[in-house]
């Protein structure tokens, strides 16, 4: 070893490891949107479900009058009570179904390992795809709200702050579930299978088949402890009721606090 080495190392710079991040997000977004499944399930699915249920099932647009007059559901249309469930589903679809498949594919193809040979940190790819999926969730939810307003007319939430809090915490909780899957699963097919095994029971417990007013009590009791069920129930309370959904908020915080650090710790890079 001789003197040639003295001036060799490129000096670390402030942004080392994140150069080209903007381009990474733009390219990954473009590539991601080329997949029909991402666009359909991420953006259109919640609106499609709302329209299908609203117009396909008789009576969904008639105000509920057979509930007790002091119930939070009295006088609300069933399709309006369906909205919190559909919005929770919108989060879960991307977080639990889409995100883990993306990372399993990266792992399977060696993309993460390939990236780790470049100056870009592989963590950037995680941040990029979280950004993409969160942004897509927001677009899908916004579209669902616009569609619901145009087709059925929205009910103004009684406590907008609670609805927003439930939405944000629900995103955190469900994306934590998704990140834990993303951290571990090595094959896209496994990600799909495991994601579905979690997603569909969560949908049931969040009331996709039995929304708010007609939810059996046992489903509600169990559902409130799941990330998606807690989100939907907390949103129900914020949208139609009064009081604070403390249990559901705690449930969402706990899921996040446990799963997200675990995902970070267990993330497999190859």
């Amino acid at each position, binding site marked *: *070893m*001789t*003197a*040639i*080495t*003295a001036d*060799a*190392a*490129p000096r*670390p*710079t402030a942004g*080392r*490891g994140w*150069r*080209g991040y903007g*381009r*990474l997000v733009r*390219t990954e977004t*473009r*590539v991601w949107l*080329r*997949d029909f499944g991402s666009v359909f399930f991420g953006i259109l699915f919640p609106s499609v479900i709302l329209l299908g249920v609203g117009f396909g099932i008789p009576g969904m647009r008639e105000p509920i009058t057979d509930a007790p007059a002091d119930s939070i559901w009295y006088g609300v249309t069933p399709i309006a009570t369906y909205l919190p469930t559909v919005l929770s589903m919108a989060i879960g679809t991307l977080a639990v179904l889409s995100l883990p498949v993306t990372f399993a*594919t*990266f792992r*399977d*193809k*060696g*993309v993460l*390992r*390939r990236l*780790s*040979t*470049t*100056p*870009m940190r592989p963590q950037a790819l995680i941040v990029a795809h979280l950004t993409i999926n969160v942004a897509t969730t927001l677009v899908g939810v916004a579209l669902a709200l616009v569609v619901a307003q145009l087709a059925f007319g929205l009910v103004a939430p009684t406590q907008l702050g609670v609805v927003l809090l439930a939405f944000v915490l629900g995103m955190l909780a469900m994306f934590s579930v998704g990140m834990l899957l993303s951290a571990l699963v*090595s094959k896209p097919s496994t990600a799909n299978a495991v994601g579905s095994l979690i997603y569909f029971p969560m949908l049931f417990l969040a009331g996709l088949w039995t929304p708010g007013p007609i939810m059996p009590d046992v489903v509600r009791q169990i559902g409130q402890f799941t990330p998606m069920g807690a989100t939907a129930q907390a949103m129900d309370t914020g949208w139609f009721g009064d009081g604070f959904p403390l249990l559901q908020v705690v449930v969402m915080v706990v899921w996040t606090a446990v799963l997200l650090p675990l995902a970070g710790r267990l993330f497999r890079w*190859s």
Partner: protein
Amino acid sequence: MAGPIVEVRNLRKTYGPKVAVDDVSFAVQPGEIFGILGPNGAGKTTTVETLAGLRQADGGTVRVRGIDTQRDPAAVKDILGVQLQEAMLHDKITVGEALGLFAGFYSDPADPGELLDLLDLREHADRQFGKLSGGQKQRLSIALALVGNPEIAVLDELTTGLDPQARRATWDLVERVRATGVTILLVTHFMEEAERLCDRLVVIDAGRVVAAGTPQGLIDGLDDGRTVVVRFAPDDVARGRELLADLAARDAEVATAEAQGATEVAVTGTRRVLFAVVPALAAADLVPDDVRTVTRSLEDVFLAVTGRTYQPDAQPDAQPDTSTGTPLVSATTREGDRS
């Protein structure tokens, strides 16, 4: 000559009880194509992945341009371009997008347009990765290893799964790349590839360097023996065998003469064995159909140093993370590069 640009000393890497790299040392000079040759599972990939700072060594030192890549892997990422075995891209990213994306990661990237030309990818710039042929994927993979304007490019099993034509085209590209001044570290289990491309190489077997030098030097250093194979017309075979056996018995330059197949005789001896065989045939007016000297290759070197016939796939792969991976080139793209 300046000091080595890559220096590996007594590298050791184990995965649990399995020793992937036992003791590997070599030094690469700037501007050369340096080969790491050996059967699958010999520890080649582990060696270069450790060199690139992707794995933590259990012993030894690894320096790239003087930088200890075990201590500071990030410091070499700008100057070391790596083409990983079995690393692929998203099926839907286009060639141009991938090059642009990777170029953005480096402080002083190469011009992606020039790389498209260098690697004959210009006409495929808008094609998605999943729709490329095996040869095109490999060329993009090389382009991505070069897009950071590296001083050293590591190319791991570059031509595995390619058909012979695409393989030769890829070899030409590697020489074109070297002509641009990039030092190339070529990992391969193809003897022919190493022999054709490498200025110098190490042969690795079971995690150890078993031979090091230039391909020709290694072959020449085998021993001084030579073999000449003579083929006779069917009518002359009996006379020919007798003549050459007799020659082996009385000429000091000739050691053995053994029948080989129906019409051939293999004659071994010293470097001058050919000079003994041809005059003897001429004196007996025995005109052979064919005379050839047996060309020795790196496979003979491998046989000489390990005592085993070279079988590239004889051992399972030592890298734990590739054991479940899909082959870089799947069956559907195997027909190679038809562009």
